[in-house]
């Protein structure tokens, strides 16, 4: 006999097999999901879910695709949160302390309540990465926010109206473009290819018969 659990989607009661995730339990209940379902493997952030367990006061924050149902779970999903997208041009900005003030001034309104960290579906130290952003330490902010999937629950809970996922993304783009050293060998190779340095060798390779290519492939040396 399959073990079942009592759960409540948007307040409505369903009995579902207890080994399902919130997402598959909704489908078991008969929902055809359009919103609130993306990659189904915890990478895209489409399925933010907030739940409270019967008898508890504290809400829990999760991704519906990554969380097993529990007895007495009251679930609301958050398929979308209106984050504050800004039209900055990555070519024109620099990783200065002022840039955060210009693009996302609301980070300086952080009251330190830690609601963002408490509500992170990925268990990130969200308030910490906002603190790094405030003081212009973009590289630290980038690494601390790297696992963010932008489900937006933190922003829904924030009394200072911060769009945390976008702050982390700006810090990461500044880090990737300006703070980390550029890959000179990659640029050099791209320039060599553009200058035609590989054209003759590539043409020779493409002129080979299938048998010749196969011979080369089967006997190629593999780097250890």
């Amino acid at each position: 006999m399959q073990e079942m659990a009592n759960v409540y989607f948007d307040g409505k009661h369903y009995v579902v097999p207890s080994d399902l995730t919130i997402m598959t339990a909704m489908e078991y209940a008969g929902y055809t999901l359009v919103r609130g379902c993306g990659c189904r493997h915890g990478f895209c952030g489409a399925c933010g879910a907030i739940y409270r367990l019967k008898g508890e006061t504290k809400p829990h924050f999760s991704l519906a695709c990554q969380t097993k149902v529990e007895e007495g779970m009251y679930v609301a999903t958050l398929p979308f949160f209106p984050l504050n997208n800004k039209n900055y041009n990555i070519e024109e900005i620099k990783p200065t302390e002022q840039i955060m003030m210009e693009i996302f001034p609301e980070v300086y309104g952080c009251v330190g309540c830690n609601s963002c960290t408490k509500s992170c579906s990925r268990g990130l130290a969200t308030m910490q990465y906002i603190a790094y952003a405030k003081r212009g330490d973009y590289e630290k902010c980038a690494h601390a926010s790297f696992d963010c999937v932008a489900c937006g629950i933190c922003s829904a809970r924030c009394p200072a109206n911060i769009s945390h996922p976008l702050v982390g993304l700006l810090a990461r783009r500044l880090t990737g473009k300006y703070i980390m050293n550029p890959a000179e060998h990659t640029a050099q190779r791209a320039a060599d290819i553009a200058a035609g340095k590989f054209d003759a060798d590539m043409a020779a390779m493409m002129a080979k018969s299938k048998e010749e290519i196969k011979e080369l492939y089967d006997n190629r040396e593999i780097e250890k």
Partner: protein
Amino acid sequence: MIKPMVMTKESPFTPAMMESMKKLEATREARLQTEPRRMTADEKRALLDEYHPDYGDKGFAKIEIGPNAGEKAPKELTALLHSKSRISGLDLDLDKVDFETDVLIIGGGGSGAAAAIEAKVAGSDVLIVTKLRMGDSNSMMAEGGIQASDKDNDSPMQHYLDAMGGGHYYNKPELVRRLVMDGAKSLEWLEGLGVMFDKHPDGSMQTFPGGGLSRKRLHACADYTGAEITRVLRDQVHNMGIEIVDYTAAVELLLDKEGNAAGAVLYNMLTGEYLIARAKTVVMATGGAGRMHYHGFPTTNHYGATADGLVMAYRAGCNLLYQDTIQYHPTGTAYPIQLFGALVTEKVRAVGAQLINTNGEAFVHPLETRDVAASAIIRETSTHGLGVDIPNGRGVWLDTPMIDIINGDGKIATALPGMLRMFMNYGIDMRKTPVLVYPSFHYQNGGIEVNAEAATEKIPNLFVAGEAIGGIHGRNRLLGNSMLDVIVFGRLAGQSAAACAKNVKVGAPTLSHVKEYESQIESAKLEDTGEASPILLPKYARDVNVGKLK
């Protein structure tokens, strides 16, 4: 900080699994000193013939109509191609135009975003339509990395050789040339947009080995490579003010009277409203088909991977290439059941984990190509009888603790944070215990045929980008070549579509090709599939009225 979210006092593994795990632990020390033998070309061929789903007839059906008539495809895809259009019988007013643009991009994944950015840079008006949210795509879920030959011991020719051999020499040479020659340029472009690659302090790229790669050519962003690239591209699309219409699928192409692509019929997924988009050129960036579950396999793909672009383009007259070849990723998650099918990135094997049977034996070299490794797992769990029992079948071990033993403590936490988090959610610490895997439907190797400018030659003004293209990867793709193709052919499709749009005067749109295709279905007297295609989303909702209706 990553900690288990579900704390279980008891082990998450069954007693039989624990028994098998002891055998694995007993052989680990010896296995650390040796490398499993690589198979010869003949051994690989025999293994594939016997065990890879592509190489049999089971699960395939013949395509009866259209440009590929007489060829085989997975029976689920054949059914889509034999189905009526979603707009069959509807009398849509094509003059009531909801959107007008230069370049219409269908699909909001990595290649759609790359195409949009380039078309916008080239001065075109651009519209992206996507049936879920912008960014929801297989690109977002690509974990392992992106290939490009940018090291001294490597070259575009070496990359070409690996891709051709991996694809069993069926790849279209001019597409592979484009892929490998644009590799370094693509990484440079992504770096310029702010993608955080794994680098050494001096800025040089860290590169990793991979299945079928003769050089360490895999570039990564921890195990979030696709997510990191896709979220940066999505941000760039937002920043450039490109118009995006979310939750809106394309269901048919519009052609003008000369047979040129001229827009699409759209469908609002939330309200059911049909909309007309007219465009000078169209980029099909609709991605893969994992949610069709060919051959009954679970999938690593996102919710919307249902081959929509193949269906629309085929009805309009494009031919498909290698539509019968599917990539099964060797290491989909087999256990726990909540993660069934979820990707365990190949990078796990690239940094040292071996594939192990129930007796603790390494039965295949961990870096064989994906089709070979997947076939070896299928053999081990079927005729060899050496799989580990899981609730819904059998799996094999992936010996993840080897990674920290080989590379030093902390390697898993820094190189594979996504994987660690995924298993830790279910109380499995992959640093301490191995994980169970089984092949999972990962990639549609085939797709719509294009030339080296990403254009379909059958339908003028129609371009294709990303996984919807067939021919780049032959009959088996190497890891890291899809993220590269997303960038190379995404950008190229955007550039080609924008250049082409400059000389296009949009003609009156028609849907006569859809009517004509349906008359072919009727003349061929095909069995009614009971569906309209494209299906847009898989049917996962339980039929709650089973047993209630007489």
